[in-house]
């Protein structure tokens, strides 16, 4: 019976399908057009994704024509699903204190690498000196900085050997 109900609504599925294809093309175009701010691309592309999702849910999944039970079933799960990321945001997404992830420290090393890559070969000597100075600074701090390096490097092959 429920089934016959749906067939009564004549949805032009082909039109929905064409709309979905246009949306997909749009998101690819948004990716190819380089906006000054990458955030604009992300927002546009996600807006397109929401539009596509609504098309699929309303017409392909018939939610537009279903009874009110759809709210009873989907509202609690949706609220719970949104709750989890929101609960994580203050802890991980927006750290109040200085982030403790090791990558926060590694980023400086990576940035200096990218900087030295960006410069021409003639300048490479210069960056080399900067890195050397940073190294000396380190060993001044801890007294036997060089030995520290040795230990951390030796650990890796030993693990591998097992």
């Amino acid at each position, binding site marked *: 019976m429920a089934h016959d109900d749906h*067939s009564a609504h004549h949805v032009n599925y082909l039109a929905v399908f064409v709309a979905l294809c246009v949306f997909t093309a749009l998101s690819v175009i948004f990716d190819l057009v380089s906006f000054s701010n990458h955030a604009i691309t992300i927002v546009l592309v996600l807006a397109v994704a929401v539009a596509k999702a609504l098309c*699929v849910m309303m017409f392909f999944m018939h939610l537009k024509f279903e009874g009110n039970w759809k709210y009873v079933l989907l509202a609690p799960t949706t609220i719970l699903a949104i709750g*989890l990321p929101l609960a994580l945001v203050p802890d991980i997404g927006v750290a109040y204190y200085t982030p403790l992830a090791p990558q926060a420290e590694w980023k400086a090393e990576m940035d200096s690498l990218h900087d030295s890559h960006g410069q021409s070969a003639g300048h490479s000597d210069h960056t080399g000196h900067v890195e050397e100075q940073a190294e000396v600074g380190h060993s001044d701090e801890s007294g036997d900085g*060089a030995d520290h390096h040795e230990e951390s490097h030796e650990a890796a092959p030993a693990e591998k050997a097992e």
Partner: protein
Amino acid sequence: MSHSTPPSSLKMGIPIPNSKLGLWLFLGTEIMFFTAFIGAYIVLRIGSPGWPTDPKDTHILVLMGGINTFVLIVSSYFVVVAHEAMAKRDFSRARRYLTYTMGLAFVFLGIKSIEYYGKISHDILPSHIAETPTQAINKVDRELEQVVRQRFAVYTDAEAIDVAQPDDLATVSAQIDAYVKARVERFDVPEELDSAVANEVLAEAKRQAALVVTTQALAANLGAIDSSMIADAAKSAASAETAANDAVEAAKQPSGADTAINEAIERLNELSTLVAGLLEEMQPVVGVDVALYRKWQNLHQHIVANVSLEKVPVATGPGYLAAREALSEGESLPALEYAEVKAELARLKSDTNYGGFVSAGVLDPHPVLYGNLFASIYFLMTGFHAIHVIVGMLLFARPLLQGNNLNEEWTDWVENSGLYWHFVDLVWIFLFPLLYIA
């Protein structure tokens, strides 16, 4: 049946088939399942400044992802058409469109596997990615060590050398050298031929036969030596051993042993010449492996000591220790630089002798900050989605297996698996912009 009577206002429950209700409840749990991943990804990404987005770092193929998005949308449309046909009792049309859907699911998985293959071959896998130049240097060291070990496996398998412990790697070069330089001397004919001499000849024949066997195994693995030479040596070893055995038997008799012993010595000396020739042939091949080992050892020592490859020629031994002793307080030898390791690896890869092994076994260093977190998230989310695609294929396979017997009893099944398939499409609609474009 509730179908025949109009639903009264007192009727409890939801006016849809139980199977459909069950599927929607399941989809409710699925929404929470995927939103947990997607939400965690968004949160982690916001909290990770420097997240990799360059396709050169992530090996993300936007075009492939876009094509897959299109493939899933088309398949979703086909499922709707199939369900509509089921409702109109046009079962052959329904079967046709279900088949198309199935085919598109295979296309999706095929494109997915191309993407996965690209990531795996670039070692973009969780916990495999170097995130800093230092880690990239260590990765080069470990991969090169693996190449050297694989080369040594040829010798250890043939029992030419012994690398029981990782520490034995230090002796490997000397062991291989010693093996190849083990010159086989000619056996001088002593004045008195007795049973002691016969036994000595037999022992020497056995030693050389063993040498032939080892060299044979080595040569087969290295693919270096003319096979006819080995065949000759093997034949000669067999005849020398037989002659030596005969000589030992003959020496037990009171007289007439001299001829047999002389014969055995002659065979033995023929074998010696052949074995010496074999080992001579081996020398250049082995030399390549020893040279590669020394290159890795030198690089490894520089990495362990963190001293410059170019400015500090050797990072071990008394000269190096003296140089370190001579440093004044707070001073250090020039540190190893990422560019030096990159250049050294390029040199090793372009070497005519062992360049092939190095290129096959060592990836070009490519540090990617947050690369491991990216790889975990990418494989977790696309992997779970791919599992859902496979489950959907199984759901469609059942009505398809009915063949011409597909009838209205399967209408609910097709509707429910269609709903499930739309959900799979829905997940991909969000995964594509989040993973491929954002």
